[in-house]
């Protein structure tokens, strides 16, 4: 068994599209919507979640035969909370401004459904290496959606990307106006539903009856 056999490859690549955590499994939606009004916090959030999911998956997978079934949720929460505390302290030390923008949502990675969902569904039944790949795959699948939403909301809402002006000034002189609605919370939901619409019309087998 190689490190990247075809089964492991599908574990890694599946969550990117056909089994995406946000738009197919409906996991981790809270934070996907709340932090995406700008591109930069979206990228930081995506990276933090990927790291936490991957390592929580590995730790739970290593412990999976020793955890009593009745208290497994609390054990999982403690492992995740410890990892999130580390990520949150690192962000406070090296990226203070972004940490301020993310506010409570760094702490809320603990209750991000992706974590519990993947730990319950995958890490409790698979070995550490496969769990690590599953964590990375799901983190990236979550990250892709976050970055797409963040890209469009920042581009149309403020005319900037990562803080740099992208839409040239001449457009504003000709009467172009930033769409302030894109910055507001409800538009995130509508952007997600457009992504779902496009994704499901390209993959007919995913449509609901």
């Amino acid at each position, binding site marked *: 068994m190689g490190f990247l056999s075809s089964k492991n490859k599908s574990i890694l690549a599946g969550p990117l599209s056909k089994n995406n955590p946000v738009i197919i499994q409906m*996991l*981790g*939606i*809270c934070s996907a919507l709340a932090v995406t009004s700008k591109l930069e916090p979206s990228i930081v959030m995506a990276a933090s979640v990927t790291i936490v999911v991957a390592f929580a998956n590995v730790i739970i997978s290593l412990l999976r035969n020793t955890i009593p079934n009745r208290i497994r949720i609390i054990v999982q*929460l403690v492992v995740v909370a410890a990892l999130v505390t580390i990520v949150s302290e690192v962000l406070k030390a090296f990226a203070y401004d972004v940490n301020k923008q993310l506010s409570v949502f760094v702490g809320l990675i603990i209750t991000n459904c992706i974590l*519990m969902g993947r730990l319950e569904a995958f890490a409790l039944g698979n070995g550490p290496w496969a769990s690590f790949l599953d964590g990375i795959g799901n983190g990236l699948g979550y990250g892709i959606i976050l970055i797409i939403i963040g890209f469009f909301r920042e581009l149309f809402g403020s005319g900037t990307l990562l803080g740099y002006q992208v839409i040239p000034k001449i457009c504003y002189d000709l009467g172009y106006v930033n769409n302030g609605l894109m910055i507001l919370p409800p538009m995130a*939901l509508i952007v997600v*539903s457009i992504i779902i*619409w496009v994704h499901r019309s390209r993959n007919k087998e995913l449509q609901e009856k």
Partner: protein
Amino acid sequence: MEELLSTLVRSIFVDNMIFAYYLGMCSYLAVSKNVNTALGLGIAVTFILTCTLPINYLLENYVLKEGALGWLGTQFESVNLSFLSLLIFIAIIASFTQLVEMVVERFAPALYSSLGIFLPLIAVNCAILGGSLFMQQKAFANVGVATVYGFGSGIGWLLAIVGMAAVREKLAYSNIPKPLRGLGITFIITGLMGIGFMCFSGLKI
């Protein structure tokens, strides 16, 4: 009194957990297919928020915050345990959920079986931990305000999920473009409801 009332109204309408912060979206999307189940889950969430917020408030102010251990003696005044707050909050919430689950199972078996798997999953509902984290961020004046904030946030969440369940029950009879069925249209309706709730944002009490 005035502060309690304004906190209550603000937490229900202006800072609504779902429409302003998207907290508790996962169970909101999964359970909002039927009005009765949605109501049951909403009541359970409100109850747990109302109970855990004052406990976490007291812990935050008498144990975790910088200088909060001052009541033990002057040598503890410089202790800052705030890095532990995430762990402590989630432990309180998880154990409280377990407690509520056992109480409901013992005294109201009918409600227990209708809520099923969602009762234990309240522990990982972002709205509950979010309530505690917002309480930490907003630094409320006293434990009464914190309790009212918890209660109001719960009621706001309940309103949103029951409203959504009522809309979705009717949606079953409408002709929606195929790729939007299910998840897609639910997002759009939540967005529209959110835009509706935004009209409260200028509210001053």
